[in-house]
């Protein structure tokens, strides 16, 4: 705290319409973010459908920490830390599998897939030791919302539902795209590494100003209708849900088109099986509405980005080292739609994707750019004078306005400032 000015360092670095470049490049700030954001707030870890059966496991992460998501014999989902309670060796070296227990290769300590220590080699050396004190570490709180599993290292704090707030409705909207009301994460992940701070990725996800320029090469050659959604005449919106969650709401444009499945660049005729199942599940009127509105484009702070057809998970490894894990969204009961979702996802995202190869180039150039000392600030004032409240009280702006970045930084400051 700077007593002379009464301003916290965060207040000096984060202004209403600008943020300081050092927020992206200072290693000490990165360490503070791990403590105050990644190891405190709710962070998306994995999806229940990735561990469908008893004893399934998949290795995930929270920031640089390796987390094993298991489904134990009782069917409960656990988030265990991949660190032997003896000397710290990683107990799991495979990305996924089915195992009742994990045996550490160092001294053969064995842990059940709910984290309990069930045995160690040559136990006579541990006479009187209470095994229950030597379980695997675990993520303190685990909650899931419609199959999306989140973890928080804080013993107290908002519930997941409170954290998601208004953005929970976007996940409700997402799962309705399945005739059975469920998302499945079954197509495997591409892992795309960038030499850039994680917040360049976070802010880009709902930046509707860049597509017309960054993605001009692919929009031009692919006859894409996406470009128009992000043009000056677009009626699409940016939205700040609070708690750092932000959205690009494309529904106004899709509703103008008034054509089911146009959001995905296709039509009902080409997906007859899916269309029939949606109508059977929801009734003709509601099915039509869902198939016109499409899936959301929402960034759940700090790391879950649902981008209409795919899901990204942002992982920070260092101040200038980040990974985007990305996979096609799959909807239960929609095999014909799912096949197209996988094809489109493979074309557009990941290290060789038509879109993401250029986005990643921008993250990296921004990171190198802000190492320059002047003008010190990132200017985020676009649309500040024309933002307004929607009917639910959330701040909205034009699709190209920087409402999302301002929302993210407002929440960031709250998390980083001492209580």
């Amino acid at each position, binding site marked *: 705290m700077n007593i002379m000015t009464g301003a916290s360092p965060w207040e000096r670095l984060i202004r209403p319409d600008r943020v300081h470049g050092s927020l992206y490049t200072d290693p000490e700030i990165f360490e503070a973010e791990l403590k105050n954001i990644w190891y405190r707030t709710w962070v998306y870890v994995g999806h229940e459908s990735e561990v469908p059966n008893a004893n399934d496991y998949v290795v995930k992460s929270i920031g640089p920490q390796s987390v094993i998501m298991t489904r134990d014999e009782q069917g409960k989902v656990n988030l265990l830390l991949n660190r032997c309670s003896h000397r710290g060796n990683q107990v799991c070296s495979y990305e996924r599998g089915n195992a009742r227990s994990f045996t550490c290769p160092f001294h053969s300590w064995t842990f059940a897939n709910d984290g309990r220590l069930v045995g160690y080699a040559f136990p006579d050396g541990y006479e009187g030791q209470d095994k229950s004190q030597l379980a695997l570490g675990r993520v303190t709180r685990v909650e899931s919302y419609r199959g999306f599993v989140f973890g928080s290292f804080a013993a107290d704090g908002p519930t997941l539902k409170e954290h998601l707030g208004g953005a929970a409705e976007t996940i409700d909207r997402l799962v309705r795209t399945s005739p059975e009301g469920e998302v499945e994460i079954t197509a495997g992940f591409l892992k795309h590494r960038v030499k850039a701070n994680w917040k360049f990725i976070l802010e880009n996800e709902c930046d509707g100003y860049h597509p017309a320029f960054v993605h001009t090469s692919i929009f031009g050659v*692919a006859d894409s209708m996406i470009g128009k959604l992000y043009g000056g005449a677009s009626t699409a919106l940016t939205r700040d849900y609070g708690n750092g969650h932000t959205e690009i709401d494309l529904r106004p444009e899709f509703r103008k088109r008034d054509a089911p499945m146009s959001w995905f660049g296709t039509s009902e005729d080409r997906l007859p099986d899916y269309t029939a199942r949606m109508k059977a599940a929801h009734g003709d009127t509601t099915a039509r509405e869902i198939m016109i509105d499409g899936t959301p484009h929402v960034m759940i702070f700090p790391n879950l980005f649902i981008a209409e057809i795919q899901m990204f998970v942002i992982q920070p490894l260092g101040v200038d080292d980040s990974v985007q*894990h*990305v996979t096609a969204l799959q909807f239960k009961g929609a095999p014909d739609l799912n096949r197209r979702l996988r094809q489109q996802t493979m074309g557009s995202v990941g290290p*060789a994707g038509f879109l993401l190869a250029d986005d990643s180039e921008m993250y990296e150039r921004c990171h190198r750019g802000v190492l320059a000392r002047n003008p010190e600030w990132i200017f985020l004032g676009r649309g500040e004078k024309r933002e307004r409240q929607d009917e639910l009280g959330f701040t909205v702006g034009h699709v190209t306005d920087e409402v999302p970045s301002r929302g993210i930084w407002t929440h960031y400051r709250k998390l980083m400032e001492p209580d």
Partner: protein
Amino acid sequence: MLSRESSATLMSAITAFLYREARLQDEHQYEAWEKLWTDDGVYWVPANGADIDPERQMSIIYDNRSRIALRVRQLMTGKHFTQTPQSNLRRLISNVELMDEQPDDGDIAVASNSLIFESSLRDDTLWAARNEYRLRHVDGELRMASKKVILVNNDKAIYTLSFLV
């Protein structure tokens, strides 16, 4: 016809083809590279192993012939910023082996290893891969009916791969 060619002659033609492909890729001669494909060509760079089912699981690249053309057209715009400026590239092709001269479909199965040095705005990056081809004679010229590039580290997080691998 293939059966009348001696193995050495065929091997020499195949090696020359692979070196030519490598040079066209290194020198960003996108249209000339595209002409090396058959009309049904498939360009596949799997993720998370060598033997995933590309119809079910995510691949880094899984292009049919029209998507290969789209990839080339995007590179040709000059506004594909990840390749503007272009990466400087040189690759070594080695361990060229004829895996099956006369498979049932008449294509020639060939494999090689490659080591690629990329210098881009981000940094210098080394890429290593096993390449598996099905080559076919079309109008007396060798063409690629499929190319599968198995990056050694395709199970890990990798940097942007926007040149022709």
